[in-house]
């Protein structure tokens, strides 16, 4: 059995990302270390975050480290250093120095055997490159369940197509969760890079859309359950992704998933509202426009018209909100979002006497962002608030004068929106003369 053991050891030692098995088998750790360390040094020059691995994974001492002689705790610490290094090197895998450095982890720490899933996920965005089949060629016979879909590719040593990965993400919940967990882990460590986030967001968007399409078949009750399962599985990832700060691409990726879920999933109002709030919470100048696009899709699928107060408050603080709406309206439907905001702002005005939203309401009507019917409702709501203003209460003077000038501006609008406003004014049961007295103004019905 000793000779068998020796043979097995030799076979294990021949697994390499760079060398032919025959050559690899004959290499000493000293030789391998020299070659790999060179790659590591180059990485350190590119990004000084690599330097910390000089202490452990790439130390002189590492040449003597043997997993089988380490305690469980030592192995666990090693795994955590390895994952940290792999996360960081992920963005560089097209560079030779990176492959050389990873080679050390393969030869010395056997990451392909001990950290199979993490290594595969790290290399997955590069599935089209020859390095991927090379990685497949050194994997152990037993690979983790989430990556069993790669078996045909391990046999043929061909690179899997993107379609295969999307298919796996939609039919294999373990794989989807592995991918989501990996991305969040890497983002938390601030080791993300654009290709990873684009890869993840793309695969998960397509997979989610496909899962939601599939959940539509079958009985209605079963449909709902399936749909709900798909959505519930994704919520924790979206929650964490949207809560993470300063990673615009992750945020926009989450917006993409949320938009697809809303457009395909038939989410109920409570969930749509929660999502709308999650979308605006923590958005920045880099993400507020895509955030508005996402909000407009969510609003379009929401039954309730008025936006929740917290959401309106954030929107009120958004710079150039109306011009962003106008830009958005060139290609998208923005009417439900704009209308929902106007209703919430009128509500704030009536309830709290907060006039900050009045210019936004006026501009939204003026820029033709609402349908005629929506505009008419907003005008009526404004008139109602005006009617309720207490003319004897001097503290309401500000509300009175601003409301008056907004209403006057609206009645004087040119074009069809102006006609809608004037027609609405005529249409209400409110006594306009009384209202004009109350507001100390003339609403110019005759113009």
């Amino acid at each position, binding site marked *: 059995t000793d000779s068998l053991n020796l043979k097995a050891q030799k076979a294990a030692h021949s697994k390499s990302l760079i060398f032919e098995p025959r050559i690899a088998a004959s290499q000493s750790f000293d030789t391998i270390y020299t070659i790999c360390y060179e790659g590591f040094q180059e990485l350190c020059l590119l990004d000084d975050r690599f330097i910390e691995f000089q202490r452990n994974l790439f130390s002189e001492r590492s040449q003597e480290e043997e997993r089988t002689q380490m305690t469980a705790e030592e192995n666990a610490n090693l795994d955590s250093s390895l994952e940290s290094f792999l996360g960081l090197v992920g963005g560089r895998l097209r560079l030779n120095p990176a492959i050389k450095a990873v080679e050390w982890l393969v030869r010395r720490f056997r990451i392909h055997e001990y950290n199979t899933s993490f290594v595969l996920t790290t290399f997955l965005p590069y599935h089209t490159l020859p390095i991927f089949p090379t990685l497949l060629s050194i994997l152990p016979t037993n690979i983790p369940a989430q990556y069993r879909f790669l078996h045909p590719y391990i046999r043929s040593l061909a690179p899997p197509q993107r379609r295969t990965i999307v298919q796996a993400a939609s039919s294999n919940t373990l794989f989807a969760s592995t991918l989501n967990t990996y991305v969040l882990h890497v983002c938390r460590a601030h080791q993300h890079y654009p290709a990873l986030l684009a890869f993840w967001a793309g695969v998960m968007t*397509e997979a989610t*859309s496909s899962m939601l399409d599939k959940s539509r078949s079958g009985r209605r009750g079963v449909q709902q359950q399936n749909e709900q399962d798909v959505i519930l599985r994704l919520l924790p990832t979206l929650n964490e992704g949207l809560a993470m700060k300063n990673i615009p691409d992750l945020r926009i990726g989450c917006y993409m998933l949320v938009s697809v879920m809303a*457009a395909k999933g038939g989410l109920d109002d409570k969930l749509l509202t*929660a999502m709308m709030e999650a979308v605006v919470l923590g958005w920045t100048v880099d993400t507020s426009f895509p955030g508005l*696009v996402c909000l407009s899709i969510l609003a*379009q699928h929401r039954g309730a018209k008025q936006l929740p107060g917290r959401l309106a408050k954030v929107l009120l603080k958004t710079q150039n909100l109306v011009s962003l709406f106008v830009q958005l309206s060139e290609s998208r*439907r923005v009417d439900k979002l704009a209308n929902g905001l106007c209703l919430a702002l009128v509500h704030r005005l009536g309830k709290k006497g907060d006039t900050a939203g009045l210019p936004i309401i006026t501009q939204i009507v003026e820029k033709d962002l609402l349908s005629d019917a929506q505009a008419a409702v907003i005008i009526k709501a404004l008139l109602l608030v005006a009617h309720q203003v207490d003319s004897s209460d001097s503290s309401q003077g500000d509300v009175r004068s601003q409301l008056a000038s907004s209403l006057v501006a609206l009645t004087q609008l040119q074009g069809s929106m102006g006609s809608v406003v004037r027609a609405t004014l005529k249409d209400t049961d409110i006594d306009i003369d009384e209202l004009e007295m109350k507001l100390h103004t003339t609403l110019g019905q005759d113009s």
Partner: protein
Amino acid sequence: EGILDPSDRVMDDNQDENPVVTQQQLSEVFDIGPSFALPPMEDIFHQVTALFGSKVSA
């Protein structure tokens, strides 16, 4: 704790003024090259949401 409460329920409410987006259309956005050669995330986002959220001809 997250703001998205998983206990929220999902309903089946087909508002069919929404455009039907096929897998093929989505693949055309994403499956255009290796991940490291994809356009910026925001461009991809706008292409995808244009499929789902574009104006429906009245």
